[in-house]
């Protein structure tokens, strides 16, 4: 299997979001599934609204606003989130 580097959103209108205290609820229209997510998933999704990005690019963008620590570790963590989100269909390999 090839590992793809770029990820994109699943369509511009695919998600409806609703904040409940510290949680973010996402209703995913194509699947009809509801997902409950916490930081940094909303931030990663936010970056992807601009267009397809690789994990490293997402980290670089997030680093402008947040203290992320060591870049390698942050990239690994974002990769892991992206893999999970891909399995759920929230993002796709571009």
């Amino acid at each position: 299997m090839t590992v793809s580097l770029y990820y994109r959103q699943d369509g511009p209108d695919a998600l409806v979001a609703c904040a409940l205290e510290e949680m973010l609820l996402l209703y995913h229209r194509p699947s009809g599934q509801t997902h409950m997510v916490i930081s940094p998933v909303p931030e990663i999704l936010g970056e992807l609204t601009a267009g397809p990005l690789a994990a490293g690019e997402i980290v670089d963008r997030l680093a402008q606003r947040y203290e992320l620590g060591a870049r390698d570790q942050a990239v690994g963590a974002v990769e892991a989130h992206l893999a999970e989100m891909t399995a759920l269909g929230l993002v796709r390999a571009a």
Partner: protein
Amino acid sequence: MNALPLVRALREPASAATLDVPGWNALIAMARAERLIGTLAFRLADQPLPPAMQPILADARIDAERESRQALWEADRAAEAIKPLGLPLLLLKGTAYAAAGLKAGEGRFIGDLDILVPRASMPAVERSLLDAGWEWVKSDPYDDAYYRQWMHELPPLIHSSRDRMIDVHHTILPLTARQRPDAEAIMAEAVPITGQLSMLSAEDRICHAAAHLLADGDLAGGLRNLWDIHCLLKDVDAEGLEERARRHGLLPHVRQARRLAEALYGAGARLTPWDRLVRARLLARDGWGRETHKLLRFGFYLRSHWLRMPPAMLARHLWTKWRKGHRPA
């Protein structure tokens, strides 16, 4: 009472105006039992209806929307899973109709995801699906061996988190059946729906639906399958269909399906005595949604196994099933 009121309402929506209250209640119960309530809701959308019918049909439309959404999502997930294999996802039945926006898909109940893959690709597809979260439903070794040896599909898989089933077929009839449809030709003629999804050609859609209805199953859900055929017939010309059906060895089935579809949902047709028996079985449903004609139903249940298997194998199969406590409904 039989299911004729349901058939009539589907054929001629304006006829529903003549129904009285018990007639409406019977129609709803039959349509739900035959899983045709969503289709009925679409058919009656522009008819003047008693006020109490509006919310009932609106509910059915909500369910149909969900059916379609979930089916398309499962197709999307399966297509993603097998993407690395470079195969398009060849959809069968309800999911194909919904994905392609065919009339047969309007309001249709869609159960499992059925796909067709080349026999040589079965192991790779199986592995890709297992990697993407699908798992085996049955753990019974007899069933598993039976499927792999004699059926035209993998044992059913279910997705571990979404709880939806997928049936992976490599042809459209069991290998034990008497007819041998040309699976390679079916796949060669498949038509694309989107970049990743495809479906059978218009002729093969009917051959498959007719084979499924008349050469394979016990006619459970037959009114719905026949409605599919009625809708699908609009996309083919008679000659092309006959030629295709002959090639698959399904000509008698396709012809019978056409006669029955014409008789029940169309302008009428001359029926043979055997057609009439099938028709009686299709209509065996009363105004409470109950199955009627138990003996006729049982006859078709036995026949469905007879059609799939040589007699000695059938006896062995039914015996094994019986010991495991399976009884026909």
